[in-house]
């Protein structure tokens, strides 16, 4: 079973923190893009059972009803499993009841809403165009129409936030009764409006304090902290994202998409012109066993439950302790072995790179 990621690189507004692959919405381009996307999927998809589909962006919800219909038509190609998860990313300001109905009709069963914050000043700094009420209305409508597996993407680590603004956001979240929350710390990337405007990053100590605060609050609200930045109600982990974190294979379709199929990791062109001209692949690389094991570590330890030792052995036919110096980190208590799984001590999950660098070095 495999997963599918489909990238829709169009936005009608550019957020100040985003350096992801995206273009201003343009009617004609979108149609040409969807044609090429259809061609790409037809060319490369080999008919296996698909477990999860994730339409991300960009802003998939910026497409018109007609374009969305066309997109869903393309997606019909996939041979879906019985319990498949089908997620689409939405921005509150370009959703309406008609679009939600369309999603429902096309078997979309999970919606991920780009919220980031409910605070006006923060939304302004991030150049987001929606209001708190639009988010609440969208969530209500989704629930009414029967899509209740809802994620909201939240953001923290913004220099103007404080415990009070966090509390206000978390208070609103507590009333929304949503199933899944991604709470990402802002990453300042080059080639973003924030960077150009010389945004000053929040300091390390405050950032960690806020992270801890959020983790604790969400735990109180009954969410399970299962990945560095992800929280879910019982039974509502993101199956699609778990594909990534379990180092399982997935198709990546669309401009700038990444995929991992038949042991080859590939990256699609980021040029819209090339993509429309059906020049899809930018580069691809076959994974060695060593790189796969390293990726398994790098991705698997993002999960609070870490890596199952038996699964690792089954996959690579070698004991995980033989490859990586996990012992060292168990000894200094930054990692834990509970008998079945090895994982990063939650206290140190926010400095996980430090551990990963050490583990990767030990495999050399």
């Amino acid at each position, binding site marked *: 079973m495999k997963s599918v990621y489909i990238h829709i690189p169009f936005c009608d507004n550019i957020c100040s923190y985003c350096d992801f692959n995206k273009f201003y919405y343009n009617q004609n381009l979108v149609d040409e893009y969807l044609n090429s996307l259809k061609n790409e999927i037809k060319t490369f998809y080999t008919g296996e059972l698909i477990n999860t589909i994730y339409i991300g962006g960009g802003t998939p919800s910026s497409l018109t009803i007609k374009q969305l219909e066309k997109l869903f038509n393309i997606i019909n190609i996939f041979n879906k499993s019985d319990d498949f998860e089908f997620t689409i990313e939405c921005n509150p300001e370009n959703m309406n009841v008609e679009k939600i109905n369309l999603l429902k009709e096309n078997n979309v069963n999970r919606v991920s809403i780009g919220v980031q914050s409910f605070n006006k000043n923060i939304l302004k700094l991030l150049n987001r165009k929606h209001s708190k009420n639009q988010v609440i209305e969208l969530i209500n409508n989704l629930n009414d129409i029967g899509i209740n597996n809802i994620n909201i993407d939240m953001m923290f680590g913004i220099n103007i936030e404080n415990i009070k603004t966090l509390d206000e956001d978390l208070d609103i979240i507590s009333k929304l009764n949503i199933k899944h929350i991604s709470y990402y*710390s802002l990453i300042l990337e080059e080639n973003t409006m924030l960077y150009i405007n010389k945004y000053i990053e929040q300091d390390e100590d405050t*950032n960690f304090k806020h*992270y801890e605060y959020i983790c604790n609050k969400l735990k109180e609200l009954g969410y399970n902290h299962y990945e560095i930045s992800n929280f879910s109600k019982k039974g509502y982990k993101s199956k699609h994202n778990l594909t990534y974190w379990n180092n399982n294979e997935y198709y990546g379709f669309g401009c700038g998409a*990444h995929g991992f199929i038949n042991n080859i990791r590939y990256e699609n062109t980021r040029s819209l012109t090339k993509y429309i001209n059906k020049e899809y692949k930018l580069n691809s690389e076959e994974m060695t066993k060593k790189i796969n094991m390293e*990726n398994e570590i790098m991705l698997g330890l993002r999960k609070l439950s870490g890596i199952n030792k038996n699964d690792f052995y089954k996959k690579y036919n070698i004991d995980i302790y033989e490859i990586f110096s996990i012992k060292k980190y168990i000894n*200094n208590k930054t990692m834990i072995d509970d008998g079945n799984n090895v994982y990063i001590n939650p206290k140190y999950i926010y400095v996980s*790179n*430090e551990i990963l660098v050490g583990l990767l070095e030990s495999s050399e």
Partner: protein
Amino acid sequence: MKQDKIRNFSIIAHIDHGKSTLADRILESTGTVSQREMKEQLLDSMDLERERGITIKLNAVQLNYKYNNEDYVLHLIDTPGHVDFTYEVSRSLAACEGALLVVDAAQGIEAQTLANLYLAMENDLTIIPVINKIDLPNADIEKVKRELKDTLGFDEDEIILTSAKTGEGIKELLDAIVERIEPPKGNINNKTRALIFDSVFDPYRGAIMLVRIMDGKISSRDKIKMMNTKASYDVVELGINSPKEVKKESLVCGEVGWISASIKSISDVKVGDTITLDNNEADEALPGYQPMKPMVFCGIYPIESNKYTLLRDALDKLKLNDASLIYEPETSEALGFGYRCGFLGLLHLEIIQERIEREFKIDLIATSPSVIYNVTLTNGQKIVVDSPTKLPEKQKIALIEEPYIKTNIFVPTEYIGPVMELCQDKRGNYINMDYIDKTRVNIHYEIPLSEIVYDFFDRLKSSTKGYASFDYEIVGYKPSDLVRMDILLNGEIVDALSIIVHKDFAYVRGKKVVEKLREIIPRQMFEVPIQATIGNKVIARTDIKAMRKNVLAKCYGGDITRKRKLLEKQKEGKKKMKMIGSVEIPSEAFLSVLSMDEK
């Protein structure tokens, strides 16, 4: 060549006053080197010398010059321009009868001008004062002339004006060399005595000695003997430099040249030693010989421990060309296997370190330099300590003595205050002050050498806006109330960071060192206390806070390349760190205890 047609001379100058360029111009205008062959500053053959604008190794070149229709042979003996190499300079000067004292027309007399002049005078040389760089727009020839007259006592008509850049005055200078400098003394019929003033290493021929024949002669069939080391060798070949090597049958009294005698190691050749003939030994060696004495010591360790043997090879190779470099294996609990190395001074240390890193591609950690302490134990035994870790426990020490230097600090009068403050800060004892003219003074202090090792140059430069020039001579050992200060990371002593300090200054130093380390050492997974201690007493403490964040919050749409790149970058960064216990320390931390900013 008749002895009375030979002139042997050196050029002495402060750094950057144009010594090497002047030498180049002399080579060129005597036709010794054609313009086509001329590289800038031909005599400085090492890249590092060229870059730093200083001369490290000496060279001697034979020039032919026609004066009043008669042929003369001039030997130009180049000297290193830095205080670290004073002994080498003094031996080069001893091989000459005269010296050109070069002063920059814009800058006037500086500290090394004077130090070198004194060395020349000690050797009874005829001095020709030269004002160089007269082509500079900011040249103040009259002022520099006054300095030469008033401070150094030259007559106005002795002074020769040159521009090594344009060639102006070079002929007058060459004429003056022939007219004023005496021909070599000594007698070809006396028993042979030749002064070794330098040596170079040739991988095929071994150590090659540069010599001045003071008495008698040496032929290519002679067996020679070193009068101080008592070693004997058969001469293989000998000759002169023009500047290329030219073989000759013999070198005679008054001449300057090279001798090769299958000497395997440069350490067997002692600069200042006297060569005589094995079968007809001179009665007395030439005066002035001193064994090479390293003044500054430090530990040198490879960052990657497996490069230890490469480091040994590098030191062996450098030693071939540099007899003054000494080293012996040393083990540090913190840094592993390395070498304790002795240097003539700080510049020498820096040069060797840089050459190892550059020519042998070994990343190094150098520990804080130490001087040599003479320690008398309570049981009366006297020991020599060249490393803080070798200092015995306080209870066992009756007396510690440390080397002192006397300074020449040339500075405009408006900076007298800051310079005195600095010297006072460095435990200096004021001696006196000479006025060069109304605007400049030469300030004399006695200061412990160990204080010069610590950031003295930098602070002198910054407190005088770069106007001060500085030189020193060693004046001997004096008792001091010294203690060893240890640095503890995570409760463990890092031996490589220990230093010896004066008791009264320990508290301030300790505070600065721990602060500096806190700045330099990045946050670690766990909080790391940094302590400075004397004996069991903690005199300063601070903490490196635990790292709070090192995470990639999001893996976008299955793109794992970003994360891999980030981790690769961090991995590379870690390779530049040294793991000490559980603490990762950047290599620069070990020398940082030296360069303490004033706050």
